[in-house]
């Protein structure tokens, strides 16, 4: 999707900005791809529609982020030649379809398999509780394009969080069986939550310039949302030991390669096709 703002930031900022924008785009796209695997398998038709719509919002957010990444990647002067092969054009499809699995920097949480519905909706909740304050903070980013993307995404994310949080409470505080499954899911997924708030030079540098959200502030809001939701759901908060990491550096689980392979198969079988 085109925007009329073109980055004019200095080059040293551009490389960290590109890394940062791709992290967010990858997070949204990988979660959407996992959700779409579940379409037609939800416990009820309304849930299929809800999850497909959440996935569509996430794909839309990743498209906006990847389009911006392409502008940052090309630099202030650079357009890749219009007749370049589709794999070389720095458009949204380039980042979704023409990068290897190890180039994706999404957090490990969003690639976790769907499992039963308890796992799927717990994963979604742990993500949405992050995404809501994240996009809220990004509405005041000093980067105009990211602030504009955030202003749209924050409104959509409010509906996502409402939906996933509602299920966590209903199933956690539901039957013995639904409670048991929800506790299993939260115990299994908790180890992937620490990575959402990892700091590094990219995050810190951009946060100092007001471009990126501050991870520590986000974590505070996330902890409050999760604590109040788990309490209402009568679920126990797991301990913070043994947090896993690596997604940001392209170190993913085995299942991730299958996810990316399936997502990219049509584009790679028919390079340059349009539909």
């Amino acid at each position, binding site marked *: *999707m*085109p*925007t*009329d703002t073109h980055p004019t930031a200095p080059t040293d900022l551009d490389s960290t900005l590109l890394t940062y924008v791709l992290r967010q785009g990858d997070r949204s796209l990988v979660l959407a791809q996992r959700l779409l695997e579940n379409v037609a398998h939800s416990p009820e038709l*309304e*849930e299929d*529609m*809800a999850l*497909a*719509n*959440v996935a*569509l*919002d*996430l*794909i*839309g*957010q990743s*498209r*906006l982020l990847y389009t911006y990444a392409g502008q940052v990647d090309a630099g202030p002067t650079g357009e890749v030649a219009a007749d370049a092969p589709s794999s070389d054009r720095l458009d949204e499809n380039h980042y979704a379809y023409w990068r290897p699995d190890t180039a994706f920097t999404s957090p490990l949480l969003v690639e976790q398999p769907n499992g039963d519905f308890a796992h799927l909706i717990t994963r979604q909740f742990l993500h949405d509780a992050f995404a809501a304050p994240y996009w*809220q903070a990004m509405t005041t980013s000093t980067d*105009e*394009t990211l*602030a*504009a*993307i955030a*202003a*749209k*995404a*924050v*409104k*959509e994310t*409010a*509906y996502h969080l*409402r*939906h996933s949080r*509602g299920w966590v409470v209903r199933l956690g505080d539901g039957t013995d069986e639904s409670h048991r499954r929800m506790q299993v899911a939260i115990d299994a997924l908790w180890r992937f939550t620490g990575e959402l708030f990892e700091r590094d030079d990219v995050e810190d540098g951009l946060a100092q310039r007001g471009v990126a959200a501050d991870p520590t502030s986000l974590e505070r809001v996330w902890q409050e949302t999760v604590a109040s939701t788990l309490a209402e759901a009568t679920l126990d908060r797991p301990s913070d030991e043994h947090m896993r990491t690596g997604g940001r550096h392209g170190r993913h689980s085995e299942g991730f390669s299958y996810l990316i392979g399936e997502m990219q198969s049509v584009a790679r079988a028919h390079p340059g096709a349009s539909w």
Partner: protein
Amino acid sequence: MSGSEPTVALDVEAVRAIVEGVDDPELPHVTIGDLGMVRGVELLPDGQVVATLTPTYSGCPATDQIRDDVAAALDAAGLDARVEFVLSPPWTTDWVTPAGHTKLRAAGIAPPHAAGDGHETRIDLPVACPRCSSRRTRRLGDFGATACKAPFVCEACREPFELFKAL
């Protein structure tokens, strides 16, 4: 409309009416003007028209179709046109016009509540049935056939309907 006649007399309001009259592909009973998606229409000195639109949802699959439909409508009017999308300020359902509300209701869709600051959902507010106006309605899900709607049923007339969600 003929594409062969020179269009010297077309003023910006007439061109804007063409743009605003394009149907939404997902909600064909309302136009993109009714939905408040048209940010501006500009006539450049060289005669080119620039139509600026706001996309509704980030992932709305109709966005590309709307771009093509607006370009086609202006082309049919003999105009050299360019269609642009701007993200900021973000689209809100508060921009849906009164005529849009009337048309949505006529199509069996409850029009959106006021969006407020847009950071909270408005899905739990009372919703009147667009068919019988009863407020005894029940929400069946958070998301409908499109992201912008939620499914409801009316307990009075028993008809299912959708709410256009405040955004």
